[in-house]
Every structure is written in C-alpha cells, then in structure tokens.
C-alpha cells in the first residue's frame, strides 16, 4: 500500500498520541489506583427497607474512616442530609429501592449508578468543608428533577462526633 509521506507522519503521530492516552489511563488506574466505582455485590431490591444494613441508612465514623450507608428511591435519597468529616476517607455503600438512579455530588467526582439488585461502593476524601448538592443523574420517573440531597463536609475537629 502506497501511503503519502505526510500521511505516514500523521498516522505515526496519531498512533503515538493514542499510546500516550492509554499509558496515562493505565498509569493512573494501576499506579495511582484511580478506578471507577466497580464493586460487585448483590442485594434483593424488594427487601431494601428491611435489610439489616440498608434498613438503617446512617453515617458511621470509625477509626478507619467514615462509612455512609444510603439508598435512593423515587424521588429522594435516604438519608436526605449526610454529614462527613473533611480530609478523611469516606466510604459510600449505596443501592436503590426501586428503579435505577444516579448519585452525583455536584462539584466533586463522586459519581455512581444505583442499580436495583446491586450495591455500589466507593471511597473518596472531601478536602473542602462546606455544603454540597447531591443530585440523581439517571432518569427515574416524573420526579427525577427533584430527587436531591445534601452533603455537609465538616471541619475535622467538629466532624469527630458520630
């Protein structure tokens, strides 16, 4: 196949750019542990309200960090207000009690799908104290646009009480 010189240069450059993209992604994923939320765990979606864990949505502050247990339902998050300490790892364990929802903390990269029958889990650290808007970002019915909650990130000294 006869390829013009300029196009050859272009193709090598494009190939090099793609290799650089892939290397960046792999480096961040393997080297820095930057992974999307990919927890594999199932739960009966018809029994979320009576589940030993999700039946009591809560925020628990332990020695190894904070755990938030929460679920989405049409058209609210439970709990509606989540308080976590700043600067410390927070693990979210979440699911859905009905249809598929999304969970996005506006202004952060905390973002996960809440798929009925599955438990979503991810760990993140909030550095800036303040009040954050949480929104559902997957269409879940006619009240989708009102499905929201509040995250309050508290200064470290205040956030120590469970």
């Amino acid at each position, binding site marked *: 196949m006869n390829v013009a010189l300029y196009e050859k240069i272009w193709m090598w450059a494009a190939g090099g750019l793609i290799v650089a993209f892939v290397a960046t992604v792999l480096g961040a*994923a393997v080297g820095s542990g930057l992974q999307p939320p990919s927890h594999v765990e199932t739960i009966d979606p018809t029994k979320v309200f009576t589940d030993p864990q999700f039946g009591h949505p809560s925020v628990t502050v332990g020695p190894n960090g904070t755990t938030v247990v929460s679920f989405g339902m049409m058209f609210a998050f439970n709990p509606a207000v989540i308080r976590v300490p700043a600067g410390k790892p927070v693990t979210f364990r979440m699911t859905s009690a009905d249809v598929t929802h999304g969970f996005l903390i506006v202004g952060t990269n905390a*973002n996960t799908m809440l798929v009925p029958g599955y438990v979503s889990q991810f760990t993140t650290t909030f550095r800036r104290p303040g009040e954050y808007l949480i929104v559902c970002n997957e269409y879940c019915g006619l009240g989708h646009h009102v499905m929201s909650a509040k995250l309050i990130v508290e200064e470290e000294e205040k956030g120590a009480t469970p």
Partner: protein
Amino acid sequence: MSTRTSRLALANLWVAIVAFGVASAMALMQALSRAALELPWRTAKMYYLSVTAHGTLMALVFTTFFIMAFGYVVAERSLGRSVPHEGLAWTGYWVALVGTLATVAAILSGKATVLYTFYPPLKAHPAFYIGATLLVVGSWLWSFVVIRSYLAWKREHPGEGAPLALHGMLATVIVWLIATVGVAAEMLFLLIPWSLGLTKTIDPELARMLFWYFGHPLVYFWLLPAYVVWYTILPKVAGGKLFSDPLARLVFVWFVVLSTPVGFHHQFMDPGIPASWKLFHTVLTFGILFASFVTAFTVTASLEVAGRARGATGLLDWLPHLPWKDPLFSSVALSMLLFGVGGIGGAINAAYGMNAVVHNTAWIQGHFHLTVGSAVALTFMGTAYWLLPRLTGRELELGLLARVQPYLWFLGMLLFAISNHITGLMGMPRRIYDASYGGSVAAQAWSGWTDLSALGGVFLFTSAGFFILVMLGTGLAGKRRDAEPIEWAEPLEPTSPKATLFDRYGLWTAVAVVLVLIAYAYPLWSHLQMQRYGSPGFTPF
C-alpha cells in the same frame, strides 16, 4: 438506472425526514423547558415524554431509515445493477414502519416514558419494545439485501474489490449485524416477556450490559454511512479526488473490528462489573480513535486537492476556493468541524478515571449532539439535498434556505454544545425537566448557560424547519428535469481493481467476533453465575 430501487430508497428517505421533523419539534420544547421559560403546556410529564420521543425518533428511526435509503442507493448506483430481492426489501420497509408506528403510539399515549435507553425496571407498554424490535428486524432484511447485492456483483467480477462506497456500506452492515445481537437478546429474553407479564422480574444490570453491547456500535452504524459520504461524495462535489482509497478501506475495516468490544465504557459508573473488564474495554476504545484520525487527514487532503484543482496556489487559500455555497459541501464540512470537537470530548468520556466528572451530566448531551447530532445528522441533511433531486428528477427548491440551513445548524449547535459541556462540568445532570433544585446555590450557577443552550435550541429548530421546508418543496413542487447522475469520487492515484486484504469481509468479521467473545463472553458468563435478585417493574410516568 432502475426507478424501482429509487422508489424503495425514496420511501425510506421520507420516513426518515418525517421522523426528523417530529423529533425536532420535541427538541425545541426541551431546550425551552430547561431554560425555565414559563410556557402554558410545560409539565414534567410532557417534558419526559418528549425526551423519549426525541431520542427514539432521532437516534433509532431517523438514522435507521436514512441509512436504509442511502444503502439502497449505494448498492444500486455504485454496482450499476438493481438491488435483488426487491420484495424482501419492501417487506423490510413495512416491518420497520409498522414497528416504528407501534413504538411512537406507545410513547405518545404516555405509556412508554422510559427514554430511548429504556433501562428496566422502568417498564413501558409492550408495544414500545415489540415495535422497536420490528424496526431492527426490518433493518436486518435491508442488511440481507445489501449483502446479496454485493455477492451478485462479485460473481460477475471475480477477484475485484467492491467500489469504496459499497465497501463502507458493507462495513456498516457487518457492524450492525454484530451489534443488534445484543439488543435482540435484551428485547426477546428480558424486556418483551417481562412487559407481557410472562416473567415477573428482570435483572437491570444484565439489561444494561446487553443494551450497551448494542449502544456503542450503534453510534458507528450512524457514523459509517456519514464517512461514506465524506470519502466518496464530498471530494466529488468539491471538485477534487479522494486522497487515498486504500486508507479509506482500512478505516472501514478498523470499525468492523473494534466497534463492539468497547461497550463497558458507557458503564464506568455501574456496580456489578469488575474494574479490570472496564479497563480492557477502555484500551480497545482508544484504539478506535486511530480510524478517525486517519479520516481527518484523508478527507482534509482530498479537500485540498479539490481547492487546488479550482485554482488555489498558496498554503491555505484552497479553503476559500471550496464551494461553500453548495449545501452538501457546507453541511459536510461544518459537520466535520463539529465532529473534531466532539471527538476530543469523546476521548475524555472514554478516559476511565476522568469519566466520573462528566458521567450523566449535561456534558454528555453536549457531546453526542456534536457527534450524532452534527457529524451524522448534518451530513445526512446535506446528503438529502444532494440525493432527493437525483432520485426524483426534481430541482432543489428553496435553494436559499438550503444554503443558509447548515450554517444556522453550526451556530445553534455551537451555542447548545458549548453551554451543555460547561454546565455538565459544573455538575448539572442531563435529562432533567427543571434545573432549579429548590434554589440551591450550586444550581443557580447553571442558569445563564441554560439560557444560551435554549437560544442554540431555537437556532437548531429553525434550521431543522428550513430543512423540512426544502425537502417538502422539492419533493412536492420541484421543477421536473433530467436527474443529474450519482457519481463517486475517484482516487487521486489510480488503484488496481483487485481485491486487497481490506476487502476480505469474512476474515475481518471473524476477527471482530473473536474480540467480542474475549470482551464479553467471560464478563457475561460470570455475571450469570452470581446470586442475582430480580426487580419488579415500575411505571413512574
């Protein structure tokens, strides 16, 4: 040339045009709704219904019928023979049309407000799923006819490679046949029995995996026919030649191989799929980029050839020498510019870790309106200006509107897409009826941008209206004359008619199937091995 095949193409083309017109009207309402304009008919129910109708009519109906029309034109005119199995082709048309009507009826009656992604356990009326399945079945008959056209031609031309336009359509067909296995499985085994009440529950995550097995190659099913226009029609209309025929063939084969085993990049934020498999799909996704980089060079170089043939001599003055008043040329050239921006955004979406910042935000709707909404839709509109007079033997009417329309689309899309990319980065979710969130401070920051997006929507709607007027004016009242011939761009360097490695469709299909098995067989198998719990259906609309 046979007018019988032209009739077949026209029948499909008109369904595409009508679907586009209805879907555009739905879009205007959404854009205005997001800007919180107090309109009398503005309700959440109407909004989400219109999002469903817009997505389904644009992404599934307009595209599929347009591609079927264009596929018949390419099969007949590039091979110089009427398409075989004409009865089957018409059967495919009617099956797809009846399916479309069933789906649209379900949506408009308010019983299928599940959006075009129809994620269960949102549960639509069975007519929605059955209708969409019939649309796909109709397209399978079309695929069969295109393949048989090629095989009949090949028997008379042993050892030769197909004309490039048909090569691109065959790649489209192969991508489509591999892709639709996923949606067919989702419809037949999960959604249809469940919506009919034959099964009580459904696994939403399994449905999502099957949907995105189909959902990503779906975008190449839209894009490849647009690439056929860019490679084989655009250089001819511009007055030049195709810079490289073999590299164009390579590009189409590249898509055959890599279109499908990449679907998990739509599910980065999903639970239930191990990170390692998401990463594997990410690497293959970046591989696809290569084909579009090559396309950017080859098509731009072909345009430079055209500009120089028109008398340009300087470094860049070939650009103003190009026929910017020709509606096919300007549509395609502007669609390529928008696709350049959309392609870079696509690389960001695919970037595994970075996806968390934009997933399911307004960024995504900004992104795909640059890709399917511009690279594909604007190219198809430009192609319709070129095609309709050639199929009907009527002159293009309202030529001024046709000349203005692509520029208006370009401007509207820039406003719409840029503002949505920005609000997306600011955390505004996609597909929301109202963006106020009870006066939240974070949400207030979006409001100026949503106004800009609405202004873009008004421009786009006006542009779509111009397109519909030109189509109706031409089809119903265009002056009759001898139709201009349908001609394809010749390669700059004469190429041998002999088939090359890139023309071995069986081989490349086999490579694609192997990659699909590697990417999907184990994740699906291990998913089915898990203790899973079904979900009942919900109709919150």
